[in-house]
Each structure stands twice: as C-alpha cells, then as structure tokens.
C-alpha cells in the first residue's frame, strides 16, 4: 500500500515535471527575446530622436499578412537605406491567429513596437485599453482624408494608425458582352435595370450573384444602397442620429436588392462566391458586384476577359464608389523604441511608401494621389478620392452581438428565401443597431 502511494507520488511528480517542461518550452524564447531587445533599447533611448549617430536599433513590427512578407522586404530596404541606424524586423502571423497573438503579447507587455491594426471598431478597441500611441502629430498624417483616418480613430477622437490601403466595391462588367449588345455603363438605376433586362433577353445572365454566403449580401448591399441615399449625406444623418434605418431611402435600398432578383442566375440561393466568380470569368454572366481584392484573381483566371467596372449611379445624377480602409499601422504605447517606430510610421505616410506599396501589392494605397501600373486600380484610386462613400456596415456598424452587419446579412438571406419582406429586413437591422449604437439609444 505504502509502495503504491510512492508510485503514485512519483508519477504525479513526473507529470508535473513534464508540464513544467512544456510550459518553459513555450515561454523560453520570449524572456531571451526581450532581454536582447531590452539591451538594444537602452542604446536606442540614449540615441533618442536624433538618428544621426550612435548604434543600430531593431524595431519589431507585426502583421497578419504572411503573403506580403516578400513585398515588405523591398519596402523596408528602401527605408533602411535612408535610416541606417534603424532596422525593421517584420514578422507576419497567420491572419486568423493574429488577434490572439497580438492581444496576449500586448497584455503581457511583450508586444511589438509597430503593429498592424484591424480597421474600425475591432482595432481601435486596443486604443481604449491604452495599448496605442496617439499619432495626431505625426508628420504627413494630415494628408489623409478624415474618412480614411476614421478606420484608425478612437472614440476619444485621436488618430492611432497610419492607414495602409483602401478596399473598394463596385460593379464589374464584361466590356465585350456590353459592346456586343450595344450597352454602355448605366447612368441611373432605371438604366441599370434596363441594361439587365436587355442582357436577360439575349440569354446572358445579367448578374453573377449568389445568396449562399451572407457576407457577399452585405457587400452587394454596400454597393447598391448608396445609390438610393446619395452617398454621404445620409450616412452623416445616420451617424448623428437624425435618421435611422427605417428611413425611406434605406428601405428603398433593400427593395432594390429585391428588385434585382429576376436578373440573378437560376437557383442563386445556392450559389457561393466560387460559383458566381466562375459565372463571371467564363463570360456567362455580364456583371459582378464585388471588391477590388477580386480584380487580380479574375484577371488571372481569364487573361482574355475584357473587364471594367462602374461606380454606382445615385438618384441625384452622381456616382459613388463604396470604400473602406483595410488595416493600418500603429505604435505600441509601451514600445521599446518609440522614436524609431514613429520614424517608420512617418515613412508609411509618404507618397514614396504609397507607390512602393501599390506597385508591390497591386492594391489602392491609402496615401492620397498614388498611381499604380494597373489602369483599373488607378481608376478605383481616383474615384475613391473624389466619389467615395463608406461601406456603412463595415465602417460604422460592425459592432453589437451579433453585429449589425451580420444581422443585415442574415435578414437579406431571409428576404431572398421569401421568409422576410424588405420592411422586416429593415426592422431587424434597426433593432440590432438600436441595441448598441449610441445615437439610436437616445
């Protein structure tokens, strides 16, 4: 009996040891890491802001874009050439794991000096927790438009990130199919419906569209809706609580989503992004409502595709392009090399960085006035300067639980399955927003 107890004790000890080994194995690199950076941190702070002389400093930088590592290498080289005392250690993590890794690092105060910030509410919540350095005085930050900076602006009104790139959503169309049938870019909603009607009569699917994936529904609504409410005027009213989602303009936007149904592919309720993308690049469908991030893929799938896009015509005879900021870069408020980190962010706000970025990644740089080698990307960039309206659900209504964005997606799906009327969709959206959106709570 006694011997048994000893055995049990022995095995527990063993288990304990193994557990300890496991733990220290995990924690191992981080103290060593911080020791190293801590050391160089001293030299860094002694050098202060003056980067003229002194020793080299390594600034750590975290991102969720593993696929961009190569491109960043070139961009960072350009920076390091001008700032020989600063070395940037770019470290990307898997996108889906990034938030967890970053949050735990920030909590244990072992976070990076520079971090990529998720856009809008989810990202700036880090500022509320005191993890971010305000950047209002960063040289160059004033060049960005207010809408762009909004993606990295905290509830206290301070800017916490340098915006990186813009996403836009619009209606892509097949130029060849349009020309064959004597069609041109529609200038109004009725024009759009007329175009769709003509295409349908010629046996071409007007819209490559599927209702199986909810996020594509809110994305498409984000393109259609600003046409009914003329872009920003209504957005501002909503934000100030002078209008809500039961306003006639918004109700009409949902009705228009329904009005498009006859021009969708057969069985569209069961189609996902893959199916609709295929319909478009195989030239079975003439139009495709989707994001700037689809462009490169579409061109790759069918290099012969004569692709172009048009922004959404509005009721007052204008057009709007729906945009939002896709991530920005921020400085950790407890950064070991704050001065050097700020120096790099200053670089990220320059046109030089914007051009490097846009050409390297074929995306719209958030830096104003940057040109790329791709004419369609340039057209998107221009329109996003002159005719932009925010993707309302991502920019302002990605909060709540489930988020108002998700609520809209689910309700639109219900509408396309004939379970909800447009008025019921609006009610659901309003109810969700009222549960958290401060101006609606009053």
């Amino acid at each position: 009996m006694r011997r048994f107890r000893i055995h049990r004790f022995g095995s527990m000890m063993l288990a304990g040891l193994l557990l300890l080994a496991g733990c220290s194995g995990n924690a191992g690199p981080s103290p060593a890491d911080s020791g190293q950076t801590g050391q160089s941190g001293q030299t860094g702070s002694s050098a202060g802001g003056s980067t003229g002389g002194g020793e080299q400093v390594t600034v750590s930088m975290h991102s969720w874009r593993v696929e961009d590592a190569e491109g960043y290498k070139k961009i960072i080289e350009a920076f390091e050439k001008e700032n020989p005392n600063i070395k940037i250690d770019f470290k990307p993590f898997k996108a889906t794991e990034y938030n967890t890794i970053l949050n735990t690092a920030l909590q244990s105060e072992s976070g990076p000096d520079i971090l990529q910030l998720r856009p809008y509410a989810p990202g700036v919540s880090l500022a509320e927790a005191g993890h971010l350095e305000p950047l209002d005085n960063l040289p160059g930050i004033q060049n960005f438009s207010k809408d762009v900076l909004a993606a990295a602006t905290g509830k206290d009104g301070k800017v916490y990130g340098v915006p990186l790139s813009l996403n836009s959503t619009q209606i892509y169309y097949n130029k060849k199919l349009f020309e064959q049938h004597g069609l041109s870019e529609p200038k109004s909603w009725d024009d759009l419906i007329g175009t769709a009607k003509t295409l349908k009569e010629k046996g071409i699917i007007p819209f490559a569209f599927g209702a199986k994936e909810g996020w594509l529904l809110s994305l498409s609504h984000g393109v259609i809706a600003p046409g009914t409410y003329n872009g920003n005027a209504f957005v501002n009213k909503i934000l100030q609580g002078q209008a809500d989602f039961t306003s006639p303009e918004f109700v009409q936007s949902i009705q228009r989503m329904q009005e498009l149904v006859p021009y969708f592919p057969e069985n569209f309720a069961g189609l996902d992004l893959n199916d609709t993308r295929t319909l478009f690049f195989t030239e079975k469908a003439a139009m495709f409502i989707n994001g700037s991030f689809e462009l490169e893929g579409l061109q790759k799938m069918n290099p012969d595709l004569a692709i172009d896009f048009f922004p959404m015509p509005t009721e007052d005879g204008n057009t709007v392009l729906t945009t939002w900021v896709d991530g920005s870069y921020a400085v950790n408020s407890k950064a070991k090399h704050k001065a050097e980190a700020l120096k790099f962010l200053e670089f990220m706000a320059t046109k030089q960085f914007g051009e490097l970025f846009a050409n390297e990644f074929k995306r719209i740089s958030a830096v104003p006035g940057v040109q790329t080698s791709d004419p369609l990307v340039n057209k998107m960039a221009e329109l996003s300067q002159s005719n932009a309206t925010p993707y309302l659900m991502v920019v302002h209504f990605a909060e709540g639980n489930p988020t108002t964005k998700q609520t809209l997606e689910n309700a639109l799906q219900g509408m396309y399955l004939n379970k909800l009327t447009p008025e019921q969709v609006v009610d659901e959206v309003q109810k969700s927003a009222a549960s958290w959106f401060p101006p609606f709570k009053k």
Partner: protein
Amino acid sequence: MKKRGKSRWLLHLFPLPALLIYVMFVVYPIFSAFTYSMYEWKGIARGAFVGWDNFLTLFQVEPFNKMFWNAFGHNVIYFVVEMIVQNGIAFALAFLIYRKIRGSGFLKIAYFMPRLLSVIVVGFLWKLILNPNYGALNTLLGKLGLEEWAKPWLGDPDTALLAIILVNCWFGIGFAMLIFLAGLQSIPEELIEAARLDGARGATLLFRIILPLVMPSITIMTVFTFIQAFEAFELVYAMQGSQGEPFRSTDTLAVYFYRLAFSGSGGAGDVSIGLGSALAVVLFVIVASVSAISLKLMRKREVQH
C-alpha cells in the same frame, strides 16, 4: 518476488502519457471553459467576474435564446434522422451480411469506404454533387426528366439541413454497420439453433431472440449517435460555413458555439468568449448527462447470453 514488484512499478507508468494528454486536452479545457463562462469579456481580455450572467444571457436575451433553441432543435432532428436512416439502414445491412448473402465480404468493404475519407473531403465532395448549377444530382434529375425536382439543395432552408444530415448518414453507415455486425456475430450459434428448434422463424426470431441479444451494440450506437448529433460541427462547417446558412436553417449548437467564441465573420469585434464558454458548458452538460442516463437505462434492458 522482487522482480514482479519492479514490473508492477513500471505498469503504473504506462497509462501516464495517455493520462497526461487526457488531462491537458480534455479535463483542463472543460474546467477552464467553466471559469471563462463566469467572467465578462472585452474582446479577448478578461473583465470582471459576473457569475451566471452569461448563462442568463444565453437563455433570456434575444437573439441568443432564439438562436439557442433554433440550433437545439436542429440537433434533435439530426439525432432522430440519424437514428432512423443511418442506424436503420446500417442494421439492415449488418443483418444481410450476417446472414451471409452473396458478396457480403465485398459489401462490408464498400459500405465502410466513405468512412475512410476525411469529413472535409466528404463535405466538399457533396457540395459539388449538390451544386445547383453543375452538380451531379441536379444533372441526373434533368436527364431523368425530373427537372422540376432540381433544387439549390444547400441554399434552400427547407432542404439544407436534411441534405447535410443525409450526407452524415452516408458517411456514418459503415461504422454503425460494423458495430451491429460485431454484435450479431457475438451471438452464440447454439442460441439461434435452439430458437429455431423451438419453432421461431423470421420476424419472431429477429425481434424476440436476435434484437435483445444485440442490445449492447444498439445501446452503444445510440449513445454514439447522440453524442455525434449534438456535437455536429465539421460537416456543417465544411458545407455551410459558420453562420448556419442559409438563414440559420443549418445552425447546430456546436456551430453556434464556434460563432460566439471565435467570431464566424472574420471580424474581431463580435467575439464573446464568455457566452461561447457558457454555451460549451451547457453543451457538455447535455451530452454528458444524457449519455450517462441513457447508458444506465438501456443497460437494464440488455440480456446476458
């Protein structure tokens, strides 16, 4: 004597790795989920201790309560359909193979085949078959002149859940069949002989003699099916994603849990670890208690041979 003691000492070490893994990956997460469920969460930062608040939210606040009962209902349907379709067919097949019809060896392998595929592959495969535009099923219906039967199977809320469950049945039949077959084959030949001599034939033989004797495998399969039905996640996720699309018609408790705890839509703003943990605890209680009770009750009806 001494030698024997030494080897005994060693014996205690053998279960250690398994135990360690079990504690680390099963026992510890259950307890941590329970503690997590008692806190308020701001994103992934733990906030104040709130006691049972998360559980109350789950059951009393819209839309959480609606989504819970909606998903719960789907789990029940999952269980019922699997019991009838999967286990019914599996038992029939096992019985045929047990009676040694021609080619039973081949059949055994053929029915078990789907099980060799990973669930993700199965989901992808059936997504292709059920695709409304170019899927094999709708094409086949068209060829048979039944165009009006063609449907967006996974996009129509009336058929989506059933389609997924039937795919799960297709996937699970082989395993259930093997369990039943093992049960059937463990019945002593003499017992059946004796029953035959006493004049039992056909249905009588099946229902009065064979079924009670294979009750242990039926018990096991029922509990298995229950656990599987209430933890249904992979296939739903592979075929429909984390939103229980379309229109929450394929939501199950595990998918709902995933959405709550890890945020299905990719944004980080709507993660609610507290609610997710509370749901995980509820799910654990449902599965553990029902499994325990049903094992206890059904064991009573088993016959020893």
